[in-house]
């Protein structure tokens, strides 16, 4: 029969690197025996003394951790703040964006607008759980391997900017990015989710022929605009280079759209065929209004950015 001491020593050694086990076992055994002897010479029963000594030594895993200098926390003070700083934005924006996209896809491609909100919430939550798990795992591994990350020391320059002189607020930027993602989602979605007609047949709103080049090109421009939003947020204000990029992106979006509208290549011809009011001149009105609105929005956006850049530099 194995004694409590044997079991205690074995339990301790299990959590200690193999190379040090033999010597440590002998030393630990001797120390425990010394402690027990001390108590039995005082007249105590051996079994009771053993119990008392092992209780005093405490949880063997904790003892092993002390022997091998191992941490007993998942993420310690060394990495905690970095982990938290990385995790926080990832747990807000990413699940929100993924949820919105999943909802849009469900509503359009999946053709189930009613279930879209539920899908968005479930997908957002799953994304959040996945992000939290994998990120925490990475940091826990870093903590265990004691890998130096060589991160720059904190300096006063890293104090957060006074938000009062920020021209670009975080909610604004987030809203813009979500809107752009949503637009991309709609562009993709409308191709698969089709306009419902009285007879139950379905048609894309935009000409399916545009898939070969123009729609992907517009989506690329929108994606670039997301990049601009991020750059703008990081700069905190409109700068002249940002205004130039903004003008370029607006032009890259509005010019093809207007040209496609005016050459009657944007709307799906089958859709126009389907509706009497579109067929009888309605399509021309829609085209003209859409072209004007596109130009006005683009121009307004460029002028607005230029005015703000001017204000920021003065």
């Amino acid at each position: 029969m194995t004694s409590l001491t044997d079991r205690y020593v074995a339990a301790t050694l299990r959590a200690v690197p193999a190379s040090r086990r033999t010597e440590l076992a002998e030393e630990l055994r001797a120390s425990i025996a010394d402690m027990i002897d001390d108590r039995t010479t005082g007249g105590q029963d051996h079994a009771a003394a053993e119990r008392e000594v092992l209780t005093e030594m405490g949880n063997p895993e904790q003892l092993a951790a002390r022997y091998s200098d191992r941490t007993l926390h998942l993420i310690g003070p060394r990495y905690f703040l970095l982990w938290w700083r990385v995790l926080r934005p990832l747990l807000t924006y990413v699940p929100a964006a993924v949820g919105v996209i999943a909802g849009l896809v469900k509503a359009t491609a999946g053709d189930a607008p009613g279930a879209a909100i539920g899908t968005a919430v479930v997908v957002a939550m799953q994304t959040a759980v996945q992000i939290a798990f994998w990120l925490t795992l990475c940091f826990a591994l870093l903590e265990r391997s004691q890998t130096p990350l060589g991160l720059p020391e904190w300096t006063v320059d890293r104090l957060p900017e006074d938000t009062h002189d920020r021209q670009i607020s975080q909610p604004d930027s987030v809203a813009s990015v979500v809107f752009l993602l949503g637009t991309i989602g709609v562009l993709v979605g409308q191709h698969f989710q089709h306009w419902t007609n009285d007879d139950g047949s379905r048609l894309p709103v935009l000409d399916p022929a545009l898939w070969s080049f123009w729609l992907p090109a517009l989506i690329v421009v929108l994606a670039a605009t997301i990049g601009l939003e991020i750059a703008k947020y990081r700069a905190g204000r409109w700068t002249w280079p940002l205004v130039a990029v903004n003008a370029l992106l607006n032009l890259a979006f509005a010019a093809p759209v207007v040209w496609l509208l005016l050459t009657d290549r944007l709307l799906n011809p089958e859709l126009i065929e389907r509706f009497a009011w579109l067929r009888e001149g309605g399509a021309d009105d829609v085209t003209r209004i859409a072209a004007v609105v596109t130009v006005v929005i683009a121009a307004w956006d460029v002028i607005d950015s230029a005015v703000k850049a001017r204000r920021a530099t003065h």
Partner: protein
Amino acid sequence: MVSDEVLRTHLQELRRGTVVVASLVALRRPDYGYALLQRLAAHGFAVDANTLYPLLRRLEEQGLLTSEWNTEESRPRKFYRVSADGEAVLGRLLDDLTAVQTSVTQLIEGVGR
């Protein structure tokens, strides 16, 4: 009156580093784990066994202690003694302890004045 818990943590903090100093001083005379524990306790350093034993090994790994197995007695025991490096580090630690004591004394006198 502050809670015992608060007082206990502060005393613990204050005592933490002194265990190393006390062990290095005591191990100028070679000794094994439990005997050292008892000697320290007798001199007012109440250290837990599960703190002292790992500490001895760590100090050995750092080269501040050397060890030798003694098999002459009833059971083989690992005897630790302070190394030359350990003696040097101990010297610095004792100097610092004195410096802290001096500073505290001066501070007390300064406040009293």
